[in-house]
Structures are given as C-alpha cells and as structure tokens.
C-alpha cells in the first residue's frame, strides 16, 4: 500500500471520527441539559436514540462511499450532514450564548438541503443536468435567506426549543416577516424534495432496465422522506405537533438515503467487476459478436449495439456487417453513443447504449478501456508477430547467406588460389629439372627451396580453407566430418553419429561448428582426458547433438565462443543448454529442428 493512500485513509478516519464525536456530543449534552432544566420538553428515549443514530449511519456510509465511490463529493456531503444534524435539545446547552445560538439555529435545518443535494448528485457525484443545478441553487438560496432571517430577525426561538437569551445580531423586530420566511423556507424545502423525488421516480419508471438496476433504492427512500418532509411542513404550518409515528418514519426515511446511496455505488462497483469478466473475454480473443453479447450482459442492457470501425470503407458496422445508418447523432434518442478511439487516434468502435449508463462513467470507461486494450493487444500482437517473423526470416536468410558465402569462399580458394599454387609448384619443379638438365645446379637448389616454401604456404591455405568450410562436410555430411573433426582434437573423442543421409546444409554446418567450438574448448580449457560427441536424428526430425567431456567444468555460457554457438543455434530455431558444474565436466546439448531450416 502506498504511503499516500495510507495517509488518505488516516485522514478520512480522523474526519469521520471527529464528526461522530461532535454529533454525539451535541446529542448527549442536549439530552442531559434538557433533562436537567426542562424535563417537560425531553423527547422520548427511543426517539432520541434513533435521532442520534441517523448521523452515525451517514458517517458510516460516508466512509464506505469514500472508499468505493467514484467521487469524493457524496462522502463529504454525508459528513456535512452529520455535522449539521443538530438536535433541537442542543439549543438548551447554548441558550445563554447570545451570539452562538442564532448561528446554529440558522443552519439547524440545512441537513435537509444537504440530503437533497446528496440525492441530486447520485450516483455520479455531481449534478447531472441544468435542472439539477437549478433545484440545488434554489434550495441553497432559500437556505441562505432562512439563515439571514434567523440571525437578523429572530429574537428567540419559541419556548419548546429553548429559553434563549436575546439574539445579539437582531437588527429588526419583525416577527411576521420571520414567520413568513420560516414557513416559506420549509414549504420550498418540501416542494423541492417532492420535485426531486418525482424526477427520480419518473426517471425510474420510464427508464430502461439498466436504469432501474442502477437506482432502484434511491427514489424509494427519497420519496418516503419527501412525503414525510411535506407532512412536516404542513403540520408545522398548522401548528400541530407532529406525531411520534410520523417523526419516526421520517428518521427511517432519512437514514435510508445514504444507505441506498452506498448500495447503489456498491451495485455500480459490482458492474465494474463484471467489466473484469469482459476483460477476460477480451484477452481470450473472443470474436466480435460474442464480445458485443458479453458487453450487453455486463451492462444489463439488451439494447447495447457495438459498431466496429471498418477501416476499408471508412464507416461503422456491427459484427454481422449491418452498418450504422446516417449520422449517429440522429439515432440517439433513448441511447447514448460512446466512441472508442485508440491512443493513436484511430477509431475502434462506437458503442450505442442506454442513456442512463452515462451516469456510470467509470463503468463505460472500463468498457472502452477493455475494448481499446483488446484491439490494441490484437494489433500489437499481430504487429509483433509480423515483426518477429520478419526478423526470423531475415536472420535465417543471413545465416544461410553466411553459410553460402563460406562455402563459396572455400570453393573459390579451392578452384582458384589453391589450383594456381599447385600448378605453380609443378612449373617450378619442371623449371628446376630443366635447370639441372642444363647443369645449373644452384638454380635447381634455389627452386627446390621455393617449392618447399610454396608447399608450406599451400598447407596453410589448406588449413584455412578447411576452417572456412570443410569440404568433407559438403561432400560427406556430419557422418564423415564430425569424426574427422574429432580426430583433430588432442583429447581422445568417442564419436557416435547416427544421422542417416544428408541434412539441410544450414543444419549440418551449424552442428559442425557447434562441435568444432565445443571441442576447441575441450582442448583449450577443460583439462579433460576424454570427450564424447553424439549426434542423432530423432523420429520427430530434430537433430540431437551432445558434446560432453570429463574435464574440470565451470565453462561459462557467456564466453565469446559459446555466445557465437548460441547465436548460430538460435538462428536455426534450435535450443542449446550448457551444463558445466565445477569439477564435473561440461555437457553441451543442442537440438535443431530440421523443419525450420531453409
């Protein structure tokens, strides 16, 4: 866990705990003071208990929303709600502080504003449209007006609430105006709550299946709350005390708000988890039809259509080839279109989905990421495969070319320089004989010396040509060339070659040079007294080559000779393993498939 994340969790815990302490503090102190000074106004224990549980539930939900929700606003709103959830009894605690109680009384109904906004920002964490913003704006404005009315106009709340000292901020004594504002505020609040609930309910009823699944609890909870709020407003207006049952229902409705909010978030999260399934299907390389089906299942939206970008025709068409008619924007209606574009700006697909899913941007982000990944992966994979294939082909062409060049070089030496030198030797011999015939003995001796120097040069040239490409390998294959090679090794070598017939030239020369390099190492470094070379062709057409010695071991695969061998073997798609534990000899195993060669 990153330290930053840990820090955020600690901070979150501190904020929530502080809010809980504050809220419980107000509740408990209000209860204690009221029971001491005005027991006749003390609410019932059951009601107070329920009342004090409300902010705790909000705080708990704030914690959950904080960790799983897409935005931080809802959880901050929930914390604000808990802080603003001021029990009426608390005013008896601050009734003697003339500057404090008006401020608190001014905001003691703001929890309603907060609750409304929480509903409005559900589930995205911010307002969906202009209407939402208007509702929030009206609510906020009326809350501010009410706050100013309390602070500037109210001398003291009625005796039910507290025996408060005079309001120090009061500038005018206008009880009628205050009462009008008070009623207005409560009325507006109730109306707005009903409007919000109504909007949600209508959206839910008219919404498609995904819409209902995303938000099935919320409207219900809000509707219950709005009704009780309206009931409150009415009873407040007619100055009758609200009955206990109604008050209790109201509390339960309020509590259900954050719970349904969090439940909705969890539900959305669950859907995001299904996006993971989509990713899995994507990785398994499902075809386009299946992918679209899985997407519909993931989104619980049977109306989902995926239109794939057809590069060739420059248009979108679904998996069955049916193309998207006309301008996509005209077709929207109940649907939204989500264009998926690759990071390089190439269109990939157009997903037509239910409009409500737009509320869950993260989900759609996940979906388009999955799609992008899938297409990108496919594209990358085929690109890499293509590149790799090109590299393999060019490498094997290079190796074959080098092999051919060596053979050609040896042949050129054989047919050119070597032949010429041999005939030169012959002519020198004839010249020497003629010199002797004519009695010029010193010239004869001189020419003899030249001939023997020439023969030395020929011998060196022979070795060189043999090293470039042994003619025995060309003519006799591994069966002849490997024993010959072993014969040149100063360490006795047991050779066993079972490769009937001839193998592809590249395979033969690779195997030959592996043996040559391995035996050179045996001679140079191993201190071995014996070595073994085994070559055989298995029934699957793989040449199995093992060079082993009984020397000191500890050979490094990183030695330049070994690296050269490895490269050669790789180039013909072979594998090489080098086992060389100190003190236990060295075993080099090479496997070369014949099929891949040339």
């Amino acid at each position: 866990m990153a330290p930053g994340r840990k820090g955020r969790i600690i901070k979150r815990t501190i904020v929530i705990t502080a809010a809980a302490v504050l809220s419980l503090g107000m509740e408990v102190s209000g209860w204690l003071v009221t029971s001491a000074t005005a027991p006749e106004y003390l609410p019932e224990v059951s009601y107070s208990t329920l009342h004090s549980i409300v902010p705790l539930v909000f705080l708990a939900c704030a914690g959950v929303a904080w960790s799983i929700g897409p935005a931080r606003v809802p959880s901050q709103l929930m914390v604000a709600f808990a802080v603003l959830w001021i029990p009426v009894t608390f005013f008896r605690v601050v009734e003697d502080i003339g500057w404090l109680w008006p401020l608190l009384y001014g905001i003691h109904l703001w929890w309603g504003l907060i609750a409304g906004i929480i509903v409005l920002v559900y589930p995205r964490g911010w307002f969906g449209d202009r209407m939402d913003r208007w509702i929030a704006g009206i609510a906020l404005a009326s809350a501010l007006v009410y706050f100013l009315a309390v602070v500037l106009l109210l001398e003291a709340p009625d005796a039910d609430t507290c025996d408060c000292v005079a309001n120090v901020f009061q500038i005018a004594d206008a009880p009628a105006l205050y009462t009008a504002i008070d009623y207005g505020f409560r009325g507006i609040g109730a109306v707005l709550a009903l409007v919000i609930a109504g909007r949600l309910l209508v959206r839910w009823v008219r919404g498609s299946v995904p819409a209902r699944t995303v938000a099935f609890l919320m409207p219900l909870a809000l509707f219950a709350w709005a009704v009780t709020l309206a009931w409150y407003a009415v009873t407040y207006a007619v100055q009758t005390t609200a009955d206990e049952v109604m008050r209790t229902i109201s509390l339960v409705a309020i509590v259900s708000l954050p719970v349904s909010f969090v439940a909705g978030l969890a539900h959305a999260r669950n859907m995001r988890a299904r996006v993971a399934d989509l990713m899995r299907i994507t990785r398994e390389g499902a075809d386009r039809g299946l992918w679209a089906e899985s997407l519909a299942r993931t989104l619980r939206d049977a109306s989902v259509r995926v239109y794939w970008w057809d590069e060739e025709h420059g248009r979108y068409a679904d998996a069955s080839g049916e193309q998207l008619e006309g301008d996509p924007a005209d077709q929207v209606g109940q649907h939204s279109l989500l264009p998926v574009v690759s990071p390089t700006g190439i269109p990939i697909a157009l997903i037509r989905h239910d409009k409500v899913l737009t509320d869950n941007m993260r989900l759609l982000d996940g979906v388009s990421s999955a799609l992008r990944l899938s297409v990108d992966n496919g594209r990358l994979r085929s690109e890499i495969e293509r590149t790799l294939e090109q590299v393999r082909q060019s490498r094997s062409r290079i190796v074959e070319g080098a092999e051919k060049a060596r053979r050609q070089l040896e042949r050129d030496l054989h047919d050119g320089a070597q032949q010429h030198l041999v005939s030169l030797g012959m002519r020198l011999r004839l010249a020497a004989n003629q010199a002797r015939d004519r009695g010029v003995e010193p010239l004869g001796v001189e020419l003899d010396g030249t001939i023997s120097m020439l023969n030395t040069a020929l011998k060196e040239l022979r070795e060189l040509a043999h090293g470039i490409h042994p003619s025995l390998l060309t003519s006799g294959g591994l069966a002849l060339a490997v024993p010959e090679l072993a014969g040149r090794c100063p360490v006795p070598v047991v050779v066993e070659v079972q490769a009937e017939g001839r193998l592809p030239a590249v395979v033969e020369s690779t195997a030959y040079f592996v043996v040559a390099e391995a035996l050179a190492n045996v001679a140079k470094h191993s201190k071995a007294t014996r070595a073994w070379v085994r070559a055989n062709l298995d029934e699957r057409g793989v040449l199995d080559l093992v060079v082993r010695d009984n020397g000191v071991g500890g050979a490094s695969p990183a030695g330049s000779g070994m690296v050269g061998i490895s490269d050669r073997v790789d180039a013909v798609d072979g594998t090489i393993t080098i086992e060389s534990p100190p003190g236990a000899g060295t075993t080099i195993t090479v496997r070369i498939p014949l099929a891949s060669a040339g």
Partner: protein
Amino acid sequence: MADPTVPLRVGIADDALLLREGISKVLEGGGIEVVASVGTGQELLDVIDELDLDAAVLDIRMPPSFRDEGIVALEQMRANGSKIGVLLLSMYATPEYALRVMGAGSGTGYLLKERVSEPQTLVRAIETVASGGSVVDPEVVEQLVHRTRADDPLSRLTERERSVLELMAQGYSNGGIAQTLFLGLKTVETHVRSILQKLDLEESPEHHRRVLAVLTLLGER
C-alpha cells in the same frame, strides 16, 4: 600387368584445365603416355574401354556437384569390372576419403594434389596403382597416426615399428619399406609381423588388404 617396355596408357580427369595440362606434362616427362584428358569423371568412364587404359588420374572434386565425383567414378569403374589403376588427387588430405578409396579395391591410390610438384612421387604412384598396388599420401597417414585416442594400440609399438607402420599405411611393400628405411628385407618382415601381432591384424596375402587394414585400424583407433 604392366610391361616395363611399353609406356603406360593413362587418362586424366580434372575440371581445372591448368592442372590437367600440368599433370600431363609431368607424366609424359616420366615416360607415361596420356591418352585422354577430360573435365569430368563421367567423360573418362565413357572412354575407358575404348582407349584400353592402364591407369586413370582423377580429381576428387569435379562437376557436377563438386563433392566426391572422383571417388564415385572409381567405384563405378570397379562396379563395371575395370581393374585399371586409379589414382585420386585431392586438395585436402582427408583420411575418410583415403579409406573409401582403399575400400574400392586394389590398384588404388590417394594423393594430395600438390604432389604434382614431385614428379617421381606422381609417376611412381601411377606405376604402383597400375600394377595393382596401393598408394596413400603420407600426410593422410600422418594425420591418422597423430590422432589421439585413449588406450592407443600404437603406444605398444616401438619407434621403428611406428615408422614401418606409417610406410605400410602409405602402401609401401616390404621391399619398398626396406629401401626407404635402409633396412634389410628380413628385418622389415620381422617388424611387420611384430606390428600385425601387436595390433591384432591378420597377415593378408593381398597387399592392398594390408593397407586397408592398417588404415582402418588407424582410423578407428
């Protein structure tokens, strides 16, 4: 087979014109009549009967595949029943080829091409194979003798016996060995018997079998 008063009739097959002509010159200088000079083994095969050759000089690497056409031609001659002497020339001293040449039967030889600058060696080799003898290039023998093997039977030979063995492998007769090493014939015969015994080889009445046996032993050691 060979009558010393009548010059040997020889055919040459080598794809390198320069060498072909050089070899002709050397042989003719040695009193050998070159009656055919061609570029491939097949061409020589075609004229063998017609020309009544005593011996053939063949390059090993010739068209069409430049691998072992010379040896193939030798094997073809033997398969056709031709018993003429055949001398194979090669740029490389390859024991495996020497063994294959000896394995084709008697009257065969294997020499490095550069021996053409030693006319006597070449002429003598042709005379040897024409009379059914065997010739193996000293360098091939050297390579074989210097091959290292664990539990080497050669280690049981004395220095002198080793020299004798090398000459045996080159195709020398006991008389030739005696001459080369300045030894008496009896001494050489004693050495040869001792060598064959130590190496667990059977004395063979046929000269070329002895060469083949020695070479094989050296190669398989």
